[in-house]
């Protein structure tokens, strides 16, 4: 019962055969070799698998791949341009928000979706988004500071 779906991933159109049981995360990791999105839980709790689907941050472990046919997807692999990391990435590094790094790609993608939609997101809105991401290493302090710094950097870049 294999079928074909087409996704635009990080700007490139790609067709994949799927069996039907796959979630978007399985397709990205196993069929498209995009292993930046991680699996950390069974109950859509950790956010490590977050990617951006049609402009919205989505936990890809819960999305049936079938339903993503035709979708526009951005993953962590699509953020840096060449050797230049994205300002969100730069901000999180500067704040010391990267420890083991397993939760990090998901957090970056959620912030990317948020700030792309609304660069003036309030602190409460930022916190609401980050609540969907579990991190065991940092105690969240540096992630919080990194998120605020990211917003600042992005605003500054926009003014330029």
């Amino acid at each position, binding site marked *: 019962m294999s079928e074909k779906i087409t996704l635009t991933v990080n700007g490139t159109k790609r067709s994949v055969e799927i069996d039907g049981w796959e979630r978007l995360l399985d397709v990205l990791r196993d069929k498209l070799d995009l292993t930046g999105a991680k699996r950390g839980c069974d109950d859509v709790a950790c956010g490590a698998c977050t990617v951006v689907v049609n402009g919205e941050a989505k936990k890809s472990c819960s999305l049936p791949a079938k339903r993503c046919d035709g979708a526009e997807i951005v993953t962590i692999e699509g953020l840096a341009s060449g050797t230049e990391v994205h300002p969100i990435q730069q901000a999180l590094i500067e704040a010391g928000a990267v420890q083991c790094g397993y939760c990090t790609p998901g957090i970056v993608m959620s912030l990317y979706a948020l700030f792309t939609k609304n660069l003036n997101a309030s602190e409460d809105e930022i*916190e609401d988004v980050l609540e969907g991401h579990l991190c065991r290493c940092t105690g969240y302090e540096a992630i919080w500071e990194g998120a605020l710094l990211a917003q600042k950097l992005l605003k500054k870049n926009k003014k330029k």
Partner: protein
Amino acid sequence: MEFKYVGKSITRPDAVKKITGKAIFLNDIKLPGMLHAAILRPDYAHAKILSIDTSAAEKCEGVVKVVTGRGCKILYGDNIRDLVPMAVDKVRYIGEPLAAVIAENPYQAKQALKEIKVEYEPLPVLTDALQALEKDAVLVHENSGDYWHLPGLGPIQGTNIANLYKLKKGDAEKGFKDADVVVEAEFNYPHGSSCAIEPHGAIAWFHEDKTIECWSSSICPFIIREELARVYGRPSSDVRVHIPELGGCFGYKSDITVEQTVAYIASFVPGRPVKWVASRREDFTSTLLGHGIRTRMKIGAKKDGRLTAMETRVYHSTGAYADTGIHVCIAAGHNSAGAYEIPNCDLQAYLMYTNQPAVGAYRGYGHQESQFATERMMDMLARKLKMDPFELRAKNYLGPGKKTAVGETLCEVNGDVTKCVDIVKKAIYGKKQEKKEDDKYFYGRGFAALMKTPKGAPNSAKGCYLKFNQDGSVCINMGGAEVGQGLRTVVQQVAAECLMIPPERIKVYTEIDTQFSPWEWQTIGSMFTTQGGRAVVRCCEKAIKMMKKTAAQALRVDLDMLDYNGKCVYLKNDPTVNVPLEGLVYGYMYPNGMTVGEVVQSSDAARLPRYSNPDENGQGTMGVSHTFGAQGCEIRIDKETGEVLVDHFASAFDVGRVINARQIRGQVAGGVMMALGATLHEELKFDKDGKMLNPFMKKYRFPTIKNRPKKQTIEFVETPETIGPFGARGIGEHPVIGVAPSILNAIYDATGIEFTQIPVTPEKMKEALKARK
């Protein structure tokens, strides 16, 4: 001392790879011809296996092999060899591997599992140490007395006692007779999970040439290598273990956890690699748990507050296998004396088999569980003595010339607890509390002092290989597992300082491979900065000496006339006479083409300078180095919801030397949060049949960003240590130790409610508030 690189917040060398999603973790690895395994877990936590029928599973699509433990003779373990890779004739806990399917893809393997039929004969189930200690309790291991174990420890045949640890210092009976006041209570620190966001996983590959290769999300590559070699009758050199990037550890990826099982499964399909990665449920039910410790404690004191005696009984529900829990239990025994000198101690710790997943290392293990009791008791004792709790503690702190419970006399280099206490006291108690209560909240403040003992074993070394490159840049290779704690940055900064070379020109290893990496016992016990750092210092000094020796020949002067500055070796009295590093690292060439000197690559390791296994009274030396600290908090309790909100959490530790300011703050913030989770939210619950009730992240109540303290004070005292680089000692585990007691002491301060168990969830708090009214 002025430092150029030490103490600075340089950016960790792995940050960019991680934040771009390019760091390779276990589950990201694909190998040619790789197969996938799924593992069947039993329906009962304790049962005889009557039969396993795999015939239907074998016929499923994609299935290559179905494996059971039938006839398996393998027993493994580092301390007590009681572990099996797969259940043989009975199952002892709900997550135990019972059978496995190997298939072309993970989905097929999981589907086929459903076709395996098992007949059981259920047995009574033990879910608590005290239950396991009862006279007529069912035995989890009928022949525990036959297991190989390290000398001086091990199971008592015919009981569920996997080990009984006893420490005697002075005469506790007399100490209690001399006491004017005695306090007594029982505490419980229930099971939890380290719950790194990356679950456990492993790949095993039995090659046709009889070598074995393994990839694992473990911090103990060399232990895995040695154990696989022993079990499969190969020389260690024929086993190659790779450790990719690790998505957090916090203890439960130490020892051998899943590797023997995956290797056993893979041994049925030689020639092809087999991968297995835990689901979160499996990570909870079949890898190592933390804690599960009940502590009964009695403390005696004179009227003036001097402690006279302590009696502790630790009852540890260590699960179905005790190999990994034994050190947790022993540590809980002797660390129950906390940061205090107590002249008379009678400390015992019962390591009890139960029908639960095995307990193993968890950040700070043995400390937070027992010092939770100690620090709550100090507050209780102070109230009974009508004494200020700070004053009571101050009368009894360990320090230079004082003797710990294990009989080790401390000296100045072990650090200063009182300086840490002062910092936290000032931060939390510095100004008067505004109010105790308003319409919405109760307000409270709490405190705890703490002591962390070092973790070692005879000859537990960490190795280092260093090589200079033609251009004067440096590569360093070590066997320490980077789990996120930032040890690569520590290595880089220590080496930069020693070699006087900027950190950007020092490349630190990215993965561990037992074929190329220097030997390291295992990366545990917050020992890497101290011990690994010393190994780096030694390698750097050797390299500098090699360059000087070559330069002495090049310049035809005596060695002691020369100095090194990171760029060249020069004549002390005339620096214009020098040889640049580039001219030394591969040896020196005279203008006439003759060459002298060595290629500058050095190798060294650091062992613990002293360590002795405890004698029959638990007296000995722990190695290096003890660390002291203090923690305190200001909290608010929501009257309506019962939620405990942390407004301010303060921590201070005597770390000897801060190597990286930003990283060390991150370590502490993360540790505090983890322990706040244990104190207020997390608990793995079992029903009476040994089934785990909440093996899910949400139901386990893993804390989110909204649970973080509103404010954190994090400061450090720097009393240099002698082994660690530039005086540094470890910090990884310490921040978890004083969290539970300081929060619960604050809850008492706010409400007068005396909690002795964690987690204090909003529901429990609400109930207690209601009962109080």
